[in-house]
């Protein structure tokens, strides 16, 4: 199984506050990883380091075998950009471009960044929208959509650049409970198609059902990682059990 992501001894502090301490893990091709843990444990910061929205203080991060850092620090901007285009990120609050139609939200980057032909990009965008069940919304503006629909558009926007690995930071947290299902369904479909994904989530049943592996973080370290049956089962450490107990109440 090809390694899509290798993280070693990753460290990150904000000022005096160490947020990530010695994080190491790997993600294989087609794997779905769920990252869980209490608030403030550094889950978002981890994703932001992996997608270059934050710069790590030390350690190594390789996407599809391409290292972002050397001993002397980050590689130059051009290399980092190529690596970044292999990663996609779905934000908690979507961050769609409000002044563009749904279709243009999806085609803008393929056309302007990857210099794809506009007609071809639009065709691909329509395919993605069909997959998301949003064909009819191509000409709408984000403010005309429900939260769940906006999140599906943002997933389509990330997929339009054909990333090798897709990160999700609590993709359903900003949604009404009845809308989370539609997003989880889309993620399940992507998993079935073999998309490599790392998902920070508070949806424990979803993590158990969909993830190949679950990572439990606390205080900037990975306390435990393993198959869902292990973390959600009897053999989990007391700390994990204690955390999960809060969700089953």
């Amino acid at each position, binding site marked *: 199984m090809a390694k899509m992501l290798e993280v070693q001894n990753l460290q990150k502090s904000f000022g005096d506050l160490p947020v990530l301490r010695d994080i190491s893990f790997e993600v294989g091709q087609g794997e779905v990883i769920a990252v869980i843990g209490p608030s403030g444990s550094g889950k978002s910061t981890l994703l932001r380091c992996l*997608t*270059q*929205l934050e710069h790590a203080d030390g350690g190594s991060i390789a996407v599809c075998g391409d290292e972002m850092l050397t001993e002397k620090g980050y590689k130059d901007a051009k290399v980092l*950009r190529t690596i*970044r*285009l292999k*990663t*996609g*990120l779905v*934000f908690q*609050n979507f*961050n*769609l*471009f*409000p*002044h563009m139609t749904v279709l243009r939200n999806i085609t*803008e*980057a393929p056309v*302007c*960044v*990857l210099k794809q032909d506009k007609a071809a990009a639009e065709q691909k965008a329509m395919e993605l929208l069909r997959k998301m069940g949003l064909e009819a919304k191509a000409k709408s*503006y*984000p*403010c005309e959509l429900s939260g769940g629909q906006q999140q599906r558009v*943002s997933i389509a*926007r*990330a997929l339009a*650049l054909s990333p090798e690995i897709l990160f999700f930071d609590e993709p359903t947290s900003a949604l009404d409970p009845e809308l989370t299902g539609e997003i989880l369904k889309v993620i399940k479909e992507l998993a079935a198609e073999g998309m490599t994904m790392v998902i920070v989530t508070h949806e424990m049943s979803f993590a158990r059902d969909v993830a190949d592996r679950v990572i439990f973080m606390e205080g900037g370290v990975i306390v435990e990682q393993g198959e869902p049956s292990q973390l959600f089962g009897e053999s989990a450490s007391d700390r994990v059990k204690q955390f999960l107990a809060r969700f089953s109440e």
Partner: protein
Amino acid sequence: MTGEETLHLFLLMLQYLLPTLKLFGFTLLYAIPLGMVVALLKMCRIKPVSWLTRLYILIMRGTPLLLQIIVVYYSVPTLRSNAHCPEFLRNLLNHVELKGDAGDVYMFRMILLAFVLNYAAYFAEIFRGGIEAIPKGQYEAAGMLGFSRIQTFFRIILPQVVKRVIPASSNEIITLVKDTSLAYAMGYMEIMYIAKKQMTTYSSLTPLFMAGVFYFVMATLLTLLFSFVEKKLSYYK
């Protein structure tokens, strides 16, 4: 005043509308882009640049435009007759012609310069507010999609800034129409100038009243224009 006189006056004043519009139009043409540059400079990470820009804005907004016009206008003649003026600067300034037709050109340019410097400061503050109101997530989303910094600014940020700054900018622009009358103080021949002159000729307030109507109509047209533009841009939130 008779009806015929009033009509004559109206046609006369119409000719002086052009210089007013010229000052108004050129001020906008230069002050808006300059205001955008000043806004970006003020947000610049290099501290001295940001401080100098802040000082410039403070001075421009903290002193009367009329004072600024007079200072800019008299800067050339005063500087070149100043004993401490460096030689190269004096040589440069000596080339500036202040009399005759060339003097008219000089006057317009100096008044325009003062207006542009003043209005750019006001626009800069509006634009900076607009830029800072764009959520950080927009930059992050653009970055994740591979847009360069320039692409992000022009394709993602600027269009949203334009929408946000239209209400405040339209206030400024409407104020500018009325502020052009300050050029009268330098003897620039615009509507206010002719109105004052005709007031003396006819010993009547009608010319002043008519000037008021000109400004009122221009301000109202601009108000209508901007509410139309705002409506046009209301297709997204």
